[in-house]
């Protein structure tokens, strides 16, 4: 049994929890829960998912490549939503830049001499921002990403359990 007194308020888990709960509160405040049409639920689901990813990315700040990539993705998506014209422009330029760099790397076919090209590519697609990493960094980022994902799952599970038993 954990000793509840030994808390780390600056841990990833606590940071994520705080942010995520705030986001959840906002989402619930926007619409009453009583309406349970599928579209509503689906919309809320999307928002919650985005909120989860966003709170996780913000909890990690820019310390990791994957968090930076995720933040960039979220921001560009929100810009696109708010102002389609400017969003498109900025999105395009940013995407162009990203693709350029990633293409530059990919055209080299990433033959790192280690021979895990297919799996590595698949992993790259899973981890946000993975296209621009070499295998070494990719493994690093994957480890941290896995750690953050497990934290996310734990917290969300607990929240869901609390509210839905």
């Amino acid at each position: 049994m954990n000793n509840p007194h030994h808390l780390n308020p600056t841990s990833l888990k606590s940071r994520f929890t705080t942010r995520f709960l705030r986001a959840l509160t906002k989402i619930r405040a926007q619409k009453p829960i009583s309406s349970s049409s599928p579209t509503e639920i689906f919309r809320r689901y999307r928002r919650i998912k985005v909120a989860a990813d966003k709170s996780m990315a913000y909890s990690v700040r820019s310390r990791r490549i994957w968090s930076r990539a995720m933040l960039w993705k979220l921001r560009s998506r929100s810009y696109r939503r708010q102002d389609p014209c400017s969003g498109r422009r900025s999105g395009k330029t940013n995407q162009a830049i990203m693709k350029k760099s990633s293409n530059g790397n990919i055209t080299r076919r990433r033959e790192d001499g280690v021979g895990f090209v297919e799996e590595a590519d698949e992993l790259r697609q899973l981890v946000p921002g993975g296209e621009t990493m070499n295998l070494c960094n990719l493994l690093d980022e994957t480890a941290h990403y896995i750690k953050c994902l497990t934290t996310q799952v734990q917290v969300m599970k607990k929240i869901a359990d609390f509210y839905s038993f």
Partner: protein
Amino acid sequence: MNTALPEMLQCSDLTVLERQRARLKWQEEQFQQQQQQSYFSELSCGVFSSQTNHVQGFQGGFMGGASGDSVLSDMVMARQVKPDPGLESPWPELGKVDMAAMGFGPCGYGNGPSFDMNHAISRTSSCPPAVAATKAVEVKGTSEKMASAVGKESFKKRKAEKLQNSKVVAEDDSKRIKACEDEGEESKITGPNTNKSSNNKKEASGDASKENSKVSEVQKPDFIHVRARRGQATDSHSLAERVRREKISERMKYLQDLVPGCNKITGKAGMLDEIINYVQSLQRQVEFLSMKLATVNPRLDFNIDNLYAKEVFSSCTTNFPTLGMAPEMVNPPYLQFNPIQQVVPCGGVEMGINSPDMTLRRTISAPVSIPDASFLDSSCLTMHQCSAMQQIQPTATWDVELQNLYNVAFDQGRSTPPFPSQPFAGAIGASDLKEI
């Protein structure tokens, strides 16, 4: 005489102590030559009557003045900077005397060697510890000048380093000062090692400034030096390749620990597949949970304030059934009218928290209440809350009380169905939402 000592010093067969004694004797002779016998005899009496530690400390005092090397001046400074920590339990009284000595040093004498004599003398004489740290600072400045002003001895650098080495060994402040640390380590090694290795180390260390840079170099290498292993290609490309491969395998091992069930798989490709599957499953889990959260009907509000008021969790997984009491507790009129004592236990039952008092006060103040976060990990508490929490009963007590109160509550028939009906939830939800 002058040449005998260095040779003796270079012989690492001598133990450190023997070297100390030899040096001391040599110093004796040196100072006798300078016609300060009166002081010295007093000093020697004082020193030799004390423990060996003191002898070594005394050595340090001599070292400071005897050499004009910048190395030793640094050492002197270092010693002066931290005389107290440097002089540890073996000779606690010397610490104070040392400070006194430093204070008294410049007062009476202006010469380098004589300064050191005074330094040494004050150690043995009983000086009122009137000197403050300021004095030590003054002394530091003056000693610096003196050290440089002292006539250059015929020491070679290596000798100076060795002296310094033993001085460091003699003193216990080797741990405090990095350069000393480096030297200290070296000196420890000189015992078991052969002459060559010790000499090599001493050569490598060089000056004090160089030592510092060496220490820093050791700690922060600019390059990662890789040695080609036996029977392997030695060109730079393959070396770099090998380094990369080692890094990758190291990371794969770390990932193996992270991903459950990866121990059985040995191939790297299989491992990567496992990792990919695991990441995919985690992402799917997040999606599923967010869908669940979207559909769940919050009986309770996600009030952040209450979030901070609670702890719970893993200790209270068994108490989840008691959470059914929560909505009932949330009922504002119920809270307002019930005396705190009555509500407190219920609050405790409800959450299994350590601080039901706090919880309830908060709930009463903010009717939107419910410790939503109660289920959350204790990690969501802020620092300030943590300190508050710690004042309250330990969890163990609460668990027991919890169970008791839960039973009591149910016995009294106060329990509504543990899973509140929709209207109740709707009412609470609506009121809560408005409160936000």
